[in-house]
């Protein structure tokens, strides 16, 4: 491993050992992951990269507890999630993982506040506290004045901020962002990345899944996947402000 890479010292959040994932597609068996081992500690800022077909999305689904591996072990905060059933995984997702999607995935007919409240509804928090916490999360992403706007009354960047507020609202262990700037122009994308940087500095664990080097360089650690295995796992050279940094 790259000697310049200093491991953060926090407790392990994600501990994956040799996981594989196979899909059956008609007659064919697709080996999306062929044995991935990965450890992520608290307050890491990590980007998972790779071309399409590299197993990046499959790994993200595993990390996000949306899917379980065919073989291998996955411990999340010390709990083995690889054997959990659908409802147990739902509970883990609800409490431990904040999702940020490329397409924002907001409920179109609900207000921002109601969208941000959603994870708290599934956590069974009572309405008054729910609203209070959702409002705090909206303020944290700089949208304290957009509480009652519906998604179609917001710009793309604002929508992604609402989605980030929704990801934050239940104080998850990790924030898992899948191409978070993919549907935004580059200027707005930079603003969103600044927000992630901010969240990282506040002590959050942030995982980006992206194929864009420009986005990945914001993270402190880059994991490259190719053909279902980890190709490289190294620290990102810290970029001076305004100075573009190439990956290789």
């Amino acid at each position: 491993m790259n000697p310049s890479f200093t491991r953060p010292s926090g407790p392990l959040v994600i501990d994956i050992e040799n996981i594989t994932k196979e899909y059956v597609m008609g007659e064919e068996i697709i080996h999306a992951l062929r044995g991935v081992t990965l450890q992520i500690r608290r307050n890491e800022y990590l980007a998972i990269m790779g071309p399409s077909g590299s197993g990046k999305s499959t790994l993200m689904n595993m990390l996000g507890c949306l899917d379980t591996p065919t073989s291998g072990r996955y411990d999340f905060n010390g709990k083995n999630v690889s054997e959990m059933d659908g409802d147990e995984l739902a509970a883990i997702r609800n409490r431990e993982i904040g999702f940020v999607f490329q397409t924002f995935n907001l409920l179109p007919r609900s207000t921002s506040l109601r969208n941000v409240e959603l994870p708290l509804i599934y956590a069974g928090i009572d309405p008054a506290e729910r609203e209070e916490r959702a409002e705090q999360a909206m303020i944290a992403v700089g949208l304290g004045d957009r509480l009652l706007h519906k998604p179609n009354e917001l710009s793309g960047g604002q929508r992604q901020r609402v989605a980030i507020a929704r990801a934050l609202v239940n104080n998850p262990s990790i924030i898992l962002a899948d191409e978070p700037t993919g549907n935004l122009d580059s200027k707005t994308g930079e603003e969103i990345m600044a927000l992630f940087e901010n969240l990282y500095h506040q002590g959050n664990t942030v995982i980006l899944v992206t194929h864009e080097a420009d986005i990945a360089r914001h993270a402190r650690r880059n994991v490259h996947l190719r053909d279902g295995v980890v190709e490289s796992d190294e620290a990102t050279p810290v970029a001076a402000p305004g100075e573009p940094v190439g990956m290789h």
Partner: protein
Amino acid sequence: MKRFLYELTESWKIAAAQMASNKTRSMLTALGVIIGIVAVTLMGTAINGISTGFDKSMSVIGDDVLYVSQRPWTRMDDWWNYRDRRKIRTEYADKINHAIAATPNTNLMVAVPTMSLLRSVKAGDNSVENVFILGTTADYTLISTLDCSEGRFFSELESRGGAEVCIVGYDVADSLFAGRSALKKKILINGHPFEVMGTLSRQGTFLGIFSLDSIVVIPLPAFKKYFSAKSEADVRVKVRDKTQMADAKDELTGIMRRLRSLAPEKKDDFSVNEQQAFKSTLDAVKATIAIAGLFITGLSLFVGAIGIMNITFVSVKERTKEIGTRKALGARRRTILLQFLIESTALCLVGGLIGLVFAYLMCFGMAAAFPSFPIRFSFELVIASMIVSVLTGLVSGIAPAWSASRLDPVTALRYE
């Protein structure tokens, strides 16, 4: 449990928001249920009405009276078997009464002869056609529920003396004398003058077919004098204890067989009728009407339910990505199931309520248009149709909701 109520409340909110944002579609879908509930509720009301009418009519016959007649009331299929039977004679009444008096511990109380036919009745320029003319004795008051609203029934003496007096039913009095008192007036029954000595209180209709108030009661001797030619006679026998109807019937049959000197191997050549037999026949008819009616109207509700099921499937398909998002954010299977189930139930419940309002207004209109038909819009019916609506919602929602709850979050999130 608390958790379940929490989820229930949240699901209701989601359902309400969903309906509000898809107003046109929701209304069109609910329309199927509205029509279904209107049909079922109106049919229920009609059946209720028929049932009430039947019961009311039955009470006129009396549940403690046996009728000795030439034919049975209920078996109409082979009437030719009864056509050539000997006629029932009014004199049997006296003989039966003698037999009753001679029997200790008898189940029978009193026998009263009746004869009847339809004739026109006139007074001055007014006339009524097809009035039921009943000839009987003063004992008739012992077996019937009739009572005089004005005047009195004729006495034993008047009856035997062949007095030409009569008691008129409500309709007859009303048609002939239009609000004025009929007492002491002369009426012409088939041209023969009778003096009115009493009017009966209002009875209503029998099965809604004919009026029980279009009746004139006269003493039997006078009846025989003028009308006996082709009329049929009955002997009505009141029973002491109506829980012992079968015994009473056997006793009466025995008396009649002795009166007619029937050898033991011969079949009865008369019929002993009672309300119960009539009632069981009517109950069967009632049940058939109810089952057929509810089945046919139930079909319309079924069509409505299919509409709801269809729209819920469409809704699940359209919102696949939303379901994926909800699952990613921690919605459990049960939560998703509940959400869609409640959406379909809410739709049905709203449809049911609207349907009920329509049905209520229609009942109102029907009651105004046909005042004689006993329409009853009961509270039970409201509860029943609400339950039916909710069940419709649950049944039509369960399949789509189940498929939504089983969606794989990865696939659902990727769905465009």
